[in-house]
Every structure is written in C-alpha cells, then in structure tokens.
C-alpha cells in the first residue's frame, strides 16, 4: 500500500500526528483496524495450542491455578524444576500413543485411496457424461449427508459383528479390523469428493478427450491417461480433504473400535492390533490417568502435529477444494 502505517515506536507527539493524519486520510485508520482484527483472529485461534504447550511442560503436581505464563518463568528468573520437557517421552510410555496415531494415519490413507478411486469414476460420469437419471442420482448422493451418523450405526454394527444374514450366510465379522472403520468413513466422505471431482472433470475441454479418442485410445485409457492427469490438482484436493476429515472423525472412530492396540509396535500388523484410532488413544488418558493433565496436553500436541504439517504443506489445495466443492454444487 502507498500510505505509511503509523509507527508505534515513535513518541507521544508522533502518535498525535498519526491520529491527525488518520482523520484526514481514512485509509490509515482502515489499515490500523485491519491489523487489530488480524491480530485478534491470530490470538484466538492459536491461544489454545499455546495453552496445551504450557500445560504439557509443567510438572503435573504443579498444575493448579495456572496463570497465562508457564510456571517455570518466575519473578526470580527461570525455575528448571518446574520445566518438564520429558513429558513428550513419558506420554508414549503410559499409553502406546504412537500406535493409535499410526492406526489413524493408516486408516486415513486407506480411506483416501478407496475414496479417490471410486470418486474419480463417479466424478467423470457426473462431470462429463450425459445420461438419464443423472440429476436424481446426484441428489440421492447428497441426501446421505442429511442423516446423523447415528442413523447408520445400528445396522452397521450388526453387519460388522456378523449378525446379519445375507442369502442364508452370516456377514463376515470385520469388527476389530480396519474395515469396520474404513468402510463407513469411505461412504461418509465419498459424496464430498464426488462433488469436488465432478467440477474439476467438467472443466476439462472436450477437445482434449476427443483428440485422445481419435488417436485410438480406449475410453478407460482416455480417463486414466488424459482426464485424471489433467485434473491432478482436483484429485490432490479431494485427497487432502478426505485424509483430514478421516483423521478428525469422531463418531465411527469412537464406536467402531474397542480401544485395544498392541503394546509393542512390532505387532502393528498382527492380530493384537484392533486398529483403535487416535480418539481412543486420547480418551485412554482420561480414564486411568484422569489427573495427569500434563500427559493429556502432551498427547494432544502429538496428535495434532500430523495435520498441522499437512495443512502447512497443502493449504492452497484446501482452499481451492472448498471453493470448487461448495460453489458448483
């Protein structure tokens, strides 16, 4: 911007001069208000994370009537006895939290792959083909999001525990396998990806696909070698959003797992792994270790890290995806 912002480090008269200038030129007042509002949003969104960090590094017996500053900063300087960074090791010793996080990441990755493959086909159909029943089908897929997850829970629970008869055979028991969560997640987040990819695929000029077909490429060949590579940004967006949504999901993660994980990471792919995700890991601290607030805070920080890294890397994709998915619907 051409106009200078008032410099707060200057002395009293300068402040008055700035005020005078601001009255003459509303642009300065506007800039000032803008920075105040931005600062307000930064403080409100980031303060909870700062609070987690303060609680985590404070020894648990010292957590009581905390101030805004961490306790190890005292009037007489730093008190190292009140600074406990080892909590980030202890947190993995009391509960195998790394296994829960790893389970969540694997579940999110599996769901993302399934959703992207299925939604790529469906997005191509809705975005590029005309056929009878297109409108009603899209509406039907959207209508799934009206129902609370609870409306799916009872039958799915019976299905996954082997209590539903299909043509005289009982359904396979997949409770305590990744599928009891990956399947509901896939169905739950599939509609969003379909809508995002429909918009992206719809934007590719018909000429490109026609050219590939005239060259002799098959229909599926054109889809996988021309359309999908051209809409790579859309596929990436749908992937990032699905991954984050699954990692954040609460309802099925909470109710479709029994909370068990192996104590040792070497048993990750063995039967002892009941695939309980991060939800159960965090809640694990609430039961047995209910008074260990520092552990709860440290575990929360560890659990947030994977998505923070993802958001920093993929922020542009997230913004463009929500744009495409929400507006073109």
């Amino acid at each position, binding site marked *: 911007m051409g106009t200078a912002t008032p410099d707060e480090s200057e002395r009293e008269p300068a402040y008055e001069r700035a005020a005078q200038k601001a009255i003459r030129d509303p642009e300065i007042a506007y800039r000032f208000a803008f920075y105040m509002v931005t600062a307000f949003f930064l403080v409100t969104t980031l303060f909870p994370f700062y609070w987690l960090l303060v*609680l985590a590094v404070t020894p648990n017996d010292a957590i009581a009537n905390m101030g805004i500053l961490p306790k190890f900063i005292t009037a007489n300087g730093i008190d190292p006895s009140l600074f406990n960074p080892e909590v980030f090791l202890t947190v993995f010793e009391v509960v195998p939290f790394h296994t829960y996080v790893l389970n969540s990441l694997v579940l999110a990755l599996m769901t993302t792959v399934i959703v992207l493959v299925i939604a790529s086909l469906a997005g191509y159909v809705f975005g590029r083909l005309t056929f009878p029943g297109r409108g009603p089908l899209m509406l039907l897929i959207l209508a799934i999001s009206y129902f609370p997850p609870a409306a799916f*829970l009872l039958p799915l629970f019976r299905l996954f525990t082997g209590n539903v008869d299909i043509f005289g055979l009982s359904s396979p028991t997949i409770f305590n396998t990744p599928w009891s969560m990956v399947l509901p997640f896939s169905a739950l987040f599939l509609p969003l990806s379909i809508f995002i990819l429909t918009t992206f695929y719809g934007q590719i000029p018909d000429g490109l696909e026609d050219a590939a077909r005239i060259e002799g490429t098959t229909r599926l060949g054109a889809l996988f070698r021309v359309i999908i590579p051209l809409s790579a940004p859309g596929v990436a967006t749908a992937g990032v959003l699905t991954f984050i949504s699954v990692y954040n999901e609460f309802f099925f993660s909470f109710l479709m797992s029994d909370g068990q994980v192996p104590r040792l990471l070497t048993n990750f792919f063995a039967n002892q792994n009941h695939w309980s995700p991060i939800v159960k890991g965090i809640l694990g601290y609430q039961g047995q270790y209910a008074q260990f607030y520092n552990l709860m*805070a440290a575990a929360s920080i560890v659990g947030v890290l994977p998505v923070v890294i993802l958001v920093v890397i993929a922020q542009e994709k997230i913004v463009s995806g929500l744009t495409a998915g929400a507006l073109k619907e």
Partner: protein
Amino acid sequence: MATDTQLRDDAPGGKSGITVHAVRWVENLSETQFAYLLLVPTVLILGVIAFWPLLSTFEMSLRADALIGAKPIGEYVGIKNYVDLLTGKRNAALTRPFMPGLSVDGQFPFLHVAGGTLFKSAITVTLIFTIVSVFFETIIGFGQALVLDQDFRGRRWVRVAIIIPWAVPVVIQGMIFFLLFQPGIGFLVEPLQQIGLFSSTPLINSVDSMIIVIVADIWKTSAFMALIILAGLQSVDRSLYDVAKVAGASKWQQFKLITFPIILPTILVAMLFRTIGAMRVFGIIETVSSCSTVPSLSCLVVTTFSQRRYGTAAAIAFLTALLIAIVVSVYIWKFNDEGGV
C-alpha cells in the same frame, strides 16, 4: 483400424484374450451404459454402507423395544415410537427427555417451555446449539474471510493459523476445551465464576457446558465458514471496485453495495452446510462434557442405543434427519427468495 493397434498396446506381451474382450465390450457400450458401469463401485459402497443401513434403521423404528427376551427387537407397532416421542410420552423411558415440557396459553409468545427443561431435552438443546453457534460462526468466518481476502505480507501464515483449528481432530478439540475450563487448572474459570456467569462446576452444569461446547465449536468451525466465504469473495469482479472508486464510493458503500449482495448466496450455502453439521453434533459434547449434561439429538440416539431400546433409538435418528430436512428446505426456500444461483 487405429483402435486395433491401440488395443494391442493396451495389452502388451499378448495378455489373455479376456482383457482384449473386456476392453472391446466396454468400447461398444452406449454412453448411458458406460456411465452406469462406472457408477457400479459408488452404488455398491453407498448401497451397502449408507442406503441399506438407513432402510434397516427405518424398519427398526417401526418396531417396539424389546428389553427382555432373546430377540433384540420387538413386534411391529407402526408409527407408535414416533407419536410417543413427539407427544413426550416416551420421555420417562429415556436418559434425557426428547421433547421439552411445552404448554400453550393466550400469553405472548403463546408457546411456553416448562422451566428447567430447556437445556435438558434433546430438541431444544440441539436447536439452541445450532442457532447460536451458526450465528457466531457466520460473523467470525465472514471477518476471517475479509482479512484473508486482503493482500499483505505474511498472508500465507495467517491463512495457516486460521485454517488449523478446522483440521484439529474433534477429540483433541474436546481435550483442549476440557483443559481450558476444568476448575482448578486454568485462569479462565475463576473470573467467569466471579462475574456470575459460571457455576462452580462448569463441565457438569447444563447451561455452562452448553456455552463451553458452543465456544469450542465456534473456535473450530469458523474457519470452515471463512474458507467458503473467501471463495465467494475471490470470485467478485475487481473492476466493480474501480468503478465504485471513480464514482466516489466509500469503503463501507463498496462493501454494502457490491461485496455483500454478490456473496450473500455463498454465505447462505456456507450456513446451510454448517447447520447440517451442527444439528448432528456429538463428538465435542462427549469429549468436553457428557451426553447426559448436554443431550443433543445424536447423543440421545447413542445413549438410547446403549440402553438396548433399539426401536426408540432408530425413531430418534429418523426424527433428527427429518428435522434437518425441514431446516434444509427453509434454507433452500430462502435461497430462492434471494435469487441465488
């Protein structure tokens, strides 16, 4: 023919004739048939994991609860579960009432909610939560979108900071607000008690917990509103502002006459998505407080389910979807009124 050459390329090393046959079969389908073929996986997974459970739940909601006996579900009773829930007859059997105690008389506002049931029954709890949180999320999200729409140094990092709460897992969001409002830990509870806003045990008091859950929801999902509204802001034609400047319009006039009318449909879409989400609230309540303190509709389905009252639980789930459908239609009706896309 060119197609034949390509077919050989597709199946290198003389793959079995089946592949070639399959490819040729796909090539010869009409566009409609091809469309339906590609939709098979979608229909399969949504059919088994979404539509079949919904039908099954609906069937269950027409049956009585079977608390004793070998069978998990009782005989067919038609819409009795729905009628009993809506008239409040079923309230006594639930952990928390479904309907608030209502009475009608000649005094304004004619419909009265019995004292004490407002924050304890599922319908009112869900509606209060939805209206208050969506209202604040829209305003704050709008503000955040306006900030992110500006060009300034460090915009990238401000954007990350504003998005991050949205990406935080619900269970960790719950843990954060539990740790912020647990008495004895933090500095927040005591001042709020002194000004008389909170009781001594905010996390097990219905009104206090409702406030905390709403604040937690606003913290996390304002960013979602911001991202959608930002998308709308960025689609506004910049030359409109140049014209307005030449015409001597102030910033406020530019906002009121250009920005706001153009993005109003986007704001309504964002509010619609958020409303659907808010009416299904469950996770944040379960982690910050408990389902018996703030009994939302989703909470009530889960607690009724764990009481083994399957018929009633299914009926509540469908009434929730019905309520969401009603609210969605109000939005769509309003949306058409505003002349949206």
